[in-house]
């Protein structure tokens, strides 16, 4: 193992701790938005996909990379939009809009 790899393990473990500390404080109220958010963030695979798709490593690698870019980008765009949509619905009683909008999303 190289020094870089050891440091990568440090980064992984420490980030895991940060994740643990932050996420244990997320209330059950927001557990679904949390899943949607981590889903969007897992679209970070895009970083690897982009390098694979654009690196000219041969046709197979390019095609695999292209599909990976599509999948990851779908998660990024869809994930962040849906998280935002969900979070925009969580309101307190006092900040309620005057006329509650009616059943647009759930009716379908």
């Amino acid at each position: 193992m190289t020094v870089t790899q050891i440091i990568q393990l440090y980064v992984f473990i420490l980030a895991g701790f940060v994740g643990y500390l932050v996420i244990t404080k997320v209330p059950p109220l927001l557990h679904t938005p949390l899943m949607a958010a981590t889903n969007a963030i897992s679209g970070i695979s895009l970083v690897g996909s982009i390098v694979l798709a654009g690196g000219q490593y041969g046709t197979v690698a390019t095609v695999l990379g292209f599909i990976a870019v599509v999948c990851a980008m779908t998660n990024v765009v869809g994930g962040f939009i849906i998280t935002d949509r969900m979070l925009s619905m969580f309101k307190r009683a006092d900040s309620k809009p005057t006329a509650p909008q009616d059943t647009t999303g759930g009716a379908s």
Partner: protein
Amino acid sequence: MSLLLFLAGLPTAAAAAYLLMSSPTGASMDALGGRELMVQLTYLASSVLFILGLRSLTKPDQARRGMQLAALGMAFAIVGTLLNSGILTYSWIIGGLILGAVLGYPLGKFVPMTAMPQRIAFSHMFGALAATLVGVGEYYHSIQIEGAAGIERFKMAAIGFEVLFGSLTVTGSFMAFGKLQEFITGRPITFKGQNFFNLLLFTAAIGCFVWMIFNPFDVRVFYVMLAAGFAIGVLMVLPIGGADMPVVVSLLNSYAGLAASATGFAIDNNVLIIAGALDGASGFILSIIMSKAMNRSFGNVLFGAFGSVVTSSGKTSEGLVAKSISAEDAAVQLAYAGRVVFVPGYGMAVAQAQHQVRELAELIEKNGGEVKYAIHPVAGRMPGHMNVLLAEANVPYDKMYDMEEINDSFHETDVVVVIGANDVVNPAAKTDKSSPIYGMPILNVSEARNIIVLKRGMNPGFAGIENELFFDEKTNMLFGDAKTSLTKLVSEVKSL
């Protein structure tokens, strides 16, 4: 705030150490060039923004802004990657980004909240597929260019982990999606010797993984491992019933994150490692919370096939009669009640009755009553399922209470309305040692003065267990589809 800074500081410090480490003169560690430094700094910024974004989810009123920061972080990561000097052609990348955005937009904008569990499972599949393909591509590329020197063991281990976890998450998530979308039966599917067979397959996959680390050029073994991963995903979710889906979906969330993290190890990228570790931790914590809320261990959820042990259920309902109530009478009870608690369950999601629930609650409040919502951690098919549905129907979140927050106040509640919930209010979890759900924490609904249960019929719940609560003398059953019953209740209360 100091904690926030501290938390943000951890990976920052680690990443800064990484940057510093690479600057002193060393044989293999040259100082970063200007462009590469820029790329690394954008990655650092996006890592910090991701953590701040997740941190913001601890406060509902800050969450939206925080997640916008996280989205900005993602934009940084993408731009940073595009600056990467290893990229020679952009046409495939741009094409992929556009196609992904076109596919992702409707998945984010138009999928109804009622379809959230399957929507989440579906996107786990996409995330894991991306990680798997990157792993396969990286392996394929490495064996082609690295010649006889071979792929280094550490890198091979990372690729192997990525491909194995990625592939089982792809098919596992697809199965979960199928079960939630109900094109695959929600009942557990079991066959003789299933656990033994799964164990065998899992051992084989691990065997391939270890073999690959020492013999990275064995291409056939690599693809056997890939195939084994896909098979494990299917077989792992097959025996799991619908009610256990919250655990499975959380677990797959964790795996998708870990696969992304492994990608980071394989291609030397810290932002992938950090984001993957955050996702992995999140999914892991959620699955632990869900398992605890069902009083079951991980292993039990994964290998137990809950639904198949119905026969061991201790008590039957023979000789007991459930009282049914008309909508008129139920409406009278509710209209003059001082304290009302709604207990939503999966039945509310199926009937899509959340808007009617809110309407009824507003009428009760207009009559001077106080309304709360009691939400069990595993109500529904994913963590927080009920909260999202109620929020969609404009129920303010400060009226939604977690089990711990509300369980002590049921005894001073006038009427509890149970809407399509069953196992999470079953007193057998406390009283009947022979019940399969014994020990599971439940909402203490039976302590309330009156209970109205909205239910389609007397079928037992998903776990297939009889519920004594329905035969309690304080309980009245209002049979029918939840949405229809609630609509009736609303018009009855209005006409009083």
